[in-house]
């Protein structure tokens, strides 16, 4: 019995809690990708770097707050910096739209041209971020680190295995939960939200109904930029901030968005968790877990790890390829948004 408990705790500590946190971060990122796809009808390759830009502003403001001695008690100071960063990132997103995408929208360019333009935006944003904060790892988490510490958990339960629950993980799950619910409430119940869904569903008819496309596009960028900044900051708090890592997150984002059917917000959230679960469960070494469950002499000699963690991006890539081959519309039925 204790063995089963130990095995469960072990799995929760190394798989379930990380999946919930990482899945939430991916869900937010994928939501941004999916919203832009649903409304502006192109795959936004600059999303990862928009996230990096937002997180960079959070870090800079956090450093400034720390330097003048402001702190947020047990919570990370970054949360105080977040609203400022969101405003800056929204401004940046609207500026790129004005400077780049609007031109192609007026020309009614094909999605392929938008994608290439977004790759250009990606490089520029990437350059700006590296120029300002540099390409290196930045740690900016402060305040309490754990909600539950592994040692006190062991002490509390008397089990061999500890369960650690980080503040950053708790924050991620909580914030994403609230954000997702508010976003859906907004899309379902407000005039602007319904207009966004209508525009995504049938652009021409939306125009005939008098829906202003520029306004819909603007609201989309505002939501996307806010989501990207929050997702980036939460990811940075949970792990660390490095511009290149944020660029790399594009792959799991797109995998998540496409698993759920790109353009569908619910799909992006489910997809986020599917990708996170696959990535973490495939790269986790199950040796210790199995040792608890099987008789002693059956215990495996190897690590029982399906794939080295270095290959975690291969998982996203594989999911992407499989979904596109087998079910390109995604796992949910119905049309976009």
């Amino acid at each position, binding site marked *: 019995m204790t063995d089963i408990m130990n095995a469960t705790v072990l799995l929760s500590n190394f798989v379930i809690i990380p999946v919930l946190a990482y899945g939430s971060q991916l869900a937010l990122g994928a939501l941004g990708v999916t919203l832009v796809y649903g409304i502006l009808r192109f795959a936004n390759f600059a999303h990862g770097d928009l996230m990096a830009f937002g997180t960079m502003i959070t870090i800079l403001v956090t450093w400034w707050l720390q330097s003048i001695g402001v702190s947020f008690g047990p919570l990370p100071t970054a949360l105080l910096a977040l609203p400022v960063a969101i405003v800056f990132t929204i401004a940046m997103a609207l500026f790129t739209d004005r400077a780049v995408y609007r031109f192609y929208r007026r020309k009614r360019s094909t999605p392929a041209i938008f994608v290439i333009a977004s790759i250009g935006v990606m490089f520029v944003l990437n350059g700006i971020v590296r120029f300002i904060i540099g390409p290196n790892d930045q740690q900016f988490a402060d305040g309490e680190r754990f909600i539950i510490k592994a040692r006190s958990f062991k002490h509390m339960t008397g089990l061999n295995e500890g369960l650690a629950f980080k503040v950053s993980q708790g924050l991620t799950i909580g914030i994403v939960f609230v954000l997702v619910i508010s976003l859906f409430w907004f899309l379902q119940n407000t*005039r602007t939200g*319904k207009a966004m869904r*209508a525009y995504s569903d049938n652009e*021409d*008819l939306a125009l*005939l*109904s008098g*829906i202003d496309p520029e306004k819909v596009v603007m609201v989309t960028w505002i939501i996307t930029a806010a989501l990207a900044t929050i997702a980036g900051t939460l990811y940075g708090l949970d792990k660390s901030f490095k511009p290149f890592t944020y660029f790399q997150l594009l792959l799991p984002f797109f995998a998540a968005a496409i698993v759920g059917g790109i353009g569908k917000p619910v799909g992006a959230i489910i997809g986020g968790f599917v990708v996170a679960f696959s990535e973490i469960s495939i790269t986790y070494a199950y040796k210790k877990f199995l040792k608890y469950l099987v008789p002693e002499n059956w215990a495996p000699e190897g690590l029982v790890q399906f794939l080295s963690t270095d290959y975690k991006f291969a998982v996203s890539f594989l999911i992407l390829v499989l979904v596109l081959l087998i079910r390109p519309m995604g796992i949910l039925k119905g*049309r976009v948004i």
Partner: protein
Amino acid sequence: MSGGYGGADILHDCNISVDKGEIAVVVGPNGAGKSTAMKALFGMLNLSQGNVTLGGEDITCLSPQERVKKGMAMVPQTNNVFASLTVQENLEMGAFLRRDDIFQTMEHVFELFPILKDKRNQAAGELSGGQRQQVAVGRALMTTPEVLMLDEPTAGVSPIVMDELFERILEVKQTGIAILMVEQNARQALNIADTGYVLVTGKNKFTNTGEALLASPEVRRSFLGG
């Protein structure tokens, strides 16, 4: 209201007009420019000559959205509902430009199309062809337009549904709205028309009351199959 258009490839000095509380029907062979004429009236393509007026006001230079504000509404031939939105949301989107209470208008639409009231919370994409057309017309009526333009409202629906739709359109007409309609089912459409326009290669070939056109041997021979 008179709509004119000229010079371009498809329409040549074609003239269409409709009065309040009347139905004007545009018929003609395939490729005659019927749908193009509708688009021209609604500002969806540029006129090289001529103009469009609404209640005496020249609206030639206005965009489709601005024309909606002025009191024109259009039901396109295809993709004329928001398939993933519910029936009620479709109607709400039709009234997007209005800031006043839309409840009365919605009740009115439900009176006109009772089936929509039962299905108000169902996605429009899940409805049958005829019901979808009702949603489409209902959406257009939500702006309480002065002119309602229908591009082949009976395309792809069964004859029974077609008769019902025409009946509803007659009811809409009774509320004092000017209705301009392009139709493939020329005979039935001319039956309910106050004015009929027969277009051929983008030109007005015959213009008369619906009755007179139906009675005219020439029109019957060429367009109505004898």
